[in-house]
C-alpha cells in the first residue's frame, strides 16, 4: 500500500493552495489526487478575469490564476495524480482511488485534506413542468462546452437564475454571437456580484428580469421556448403575467452545493446551512486529522478566499502531522 503523510483530495484552487502551504510548513510527503486529466479544477474553464486581486495584487483570468499555483506545485516537486478519482475514505485514513491506467489503488495517509469543491444545482431541484427536451444545461456545463470544448450550446438563450456563472455566461455567449434573451431571477435581487451585472448584462443590454421565473418548458425533442411568469412576494407565480419566450437553450444558474459524497460516507458531521462538513476554525473536521477547505466547506464568492482558507487548512494539517511525529 502506498503511504503519504498528507493526501489532498482535489487539485483545484483549494487543493493546490493547501498543498503549497503544507509544503512550506515542512511536510515532504504530499499527494494531490485530481479526478480531471489536469490540475486547476474549475479555474480552467473560468477564462474571465477577476481572480488574484487579493492573492497576487493583480487581475488574472482563471487559467492564469491556476497556473501560478501549478507552477508552485511543480517547483516544489509536490506529487500529484490526475485522472485519479477517490471513491472511498475510511475513518483510519485509507483512501481508495481509481486511477486511469493503474486501476484501483489504496493509499494510507496520516492526514487528509478534503478539497473537492462544489457542483451546480440541477433542474430536478427546481420542479419546472414540461418534457425533458434537449437544450437545458447548467450554466457551468455551458461554460465547459464553450471554453474547453469550443462548441456553442445554442443560439437563442434564456438564463434562469442570476448567479455569477449565469451572468458570466450571458456575456460569454453574447460575445460568441448568441442572442441572450434575458436572465430571469426569482428573487427581487440578483445573487450575483454587482460588478457582474454591470459588465456582463448592462454592457450588452441583456435584460435582468427580477421576481420572474420559468413556469413551463416548451418543446419535446429540443426546447422551443419557456413561459416566464412574474412572482409575488411569496415567490408564487402571478397568474396573467405569463410570457412566452422562444429559445433553443435554457441555462440554469441556480446555486452551488458543496460536493460531499465522500465526507458523508466518512460519517463527518455536516452543517445543514452550508451543506459542508462542520469544521473548527483551524479547518479540521470532527474527525481528527481530516481537514476541509474551499467550496466543499461552503460556497465562496471568490477563488482568492478559497486559496486563503486552504492555506489555513494546509498549515493545520501540517501541524497535525508534525505533532504526531513527536
Amino acid at each position, binding site marked *: 500500500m502506498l503511504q503519504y503523510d498528507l493526501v489532498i483530495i482535489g487539485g483545484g484552487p483549494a487543493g493546490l493552495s493547501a498543498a503549497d502551504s503544507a509544503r512550506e510548513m515542512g511536510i515532504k510527503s504530499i499527494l494531490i489526487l485530481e479526478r480531471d486529466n489536469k490540475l486547476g479544477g474549475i479555474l*480552467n474553464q473560468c*477564462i*474571465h*478575469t*477577476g481572480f488574484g*486581486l487579493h492573492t497576487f495584487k493583480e*487581475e488574472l*483570468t*482563471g*487559467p*492564469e490564476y491556476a*497556473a501560478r499555483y501549478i507552477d508552485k506545485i511543480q517547483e516544489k516537486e509536490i506529487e500529484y495524480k490526475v485522472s485519479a478519482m477517490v471513491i472511498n475514505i475510511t475513518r483510519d485514513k485509507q483512501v481508495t482511488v481509481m486511477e486511469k491506467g493503474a486501476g484501483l489503488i489504496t493509499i494510507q495517509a496520516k492526514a487528509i485534506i478534503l478539497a473537492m469543491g462544489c457542483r451546480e444545482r440541477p433542474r430536478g431541484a427546481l420542479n419546472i413542468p414540461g418534457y425533458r427536451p434537449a437544450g437545458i444545461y447548467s450554466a457551468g456545463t455551458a461554460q465547459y462546452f*464553450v*471554453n*474547453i*470544448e*469550443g462548441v456553442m450550446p445554442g443560439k437563442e438563450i434564456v438564463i434562469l437564475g442570476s448567479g455569477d456563472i449565469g451572468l458570466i455566461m450571458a456575456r*460569454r455567449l453574447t*460575445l*460568441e*454571437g448568441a442572442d441572450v434573451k434575458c436572465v430571469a431571477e426569482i428573487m427581487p435581487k440578483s445573487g450575483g*456580484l*454587482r*460588478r457582474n*451585472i*454591470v*459588465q456582463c448584462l448592462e*454592457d450588452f443590454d441583456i435584460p435582468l428580469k427580477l421576481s420572474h421565473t420559468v413556469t413551463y418548458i416548451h418543446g419535446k425533442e429540443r426546447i422551443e421556448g419557456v413561459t416566464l411568469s412574474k412572482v409575488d412576494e411569496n415567490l408564487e407565480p402571478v397568474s396573467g403575467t405569463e410570457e412566452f419566450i422562444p429559445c433553443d437553450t435554457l441555462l440554469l444558474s441556480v446555486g452551488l452545493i458543496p460536493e460531499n459524497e465522500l465526507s458523508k460516507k466518512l460519517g463527518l458531521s455536516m452543517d445543514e446551512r452550508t451543506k459542508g462538513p462542520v469544521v473548527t476554525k483551524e479547518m479540521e473536521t470532527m474527525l481528527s486529522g481530516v481537514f476541509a477547505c474551499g467550496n466543499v466547506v461552503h460556497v465562496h*464568492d*471568490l477563488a482568492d478566499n478559497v486559496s486563503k482558507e486552504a492555506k489555513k487548512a494546509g498549515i493545520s494539517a501540517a501541524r497535525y502531522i508534525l505533532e504526531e511525529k513527536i
Partner: protein
Amino acid sequence: MIERKELTCIKCPRGCGILVETEQGRIVSISGNQCKNGKEYAKKEATNPTRVLTTTVKVLFGTEKVAAVKSKGEIPKEKLLPAMEQIKEVQVEAPVILGEIILEDLCGTGIPLVAAACVARKRLP
C-alpha cells in the same frame, strides 16, 4: 448644466456605487469610490469606457481544442464585438505558451491579444 452619472465600479468585488458629475463633457467631481482604482475607473467610464476582453482561440495539434486568450490591457467597450469577429478567424498551432502574443493589434487599438493558458502539442500515437 451639471450632468450626474451613477456608476458601479467593476474593479473589484466590492462594487462601489460612484457618482460622476460632468459639465460639458468635463468631469467636475467623482464621489463614492473607496480607492484610487475606483476613481480611475469612473474617469474612464464617464468618458471612454474600456474592458479587458477574454475569449478562446482554436488550437491545431493541441492537447486541448481551444486556448484561453485575453487582451493585454483594456480596449474600448465598443470594440469588444468587432474584436471577437477578428479573433474568430484565428487558429494557432500548439504548443501555446501562457503570455505568448496571438494577435499584434486588436482592431486597431494597438493592444495585443495574448494567451492566458498553455496548451501542449499532442504527441503522435
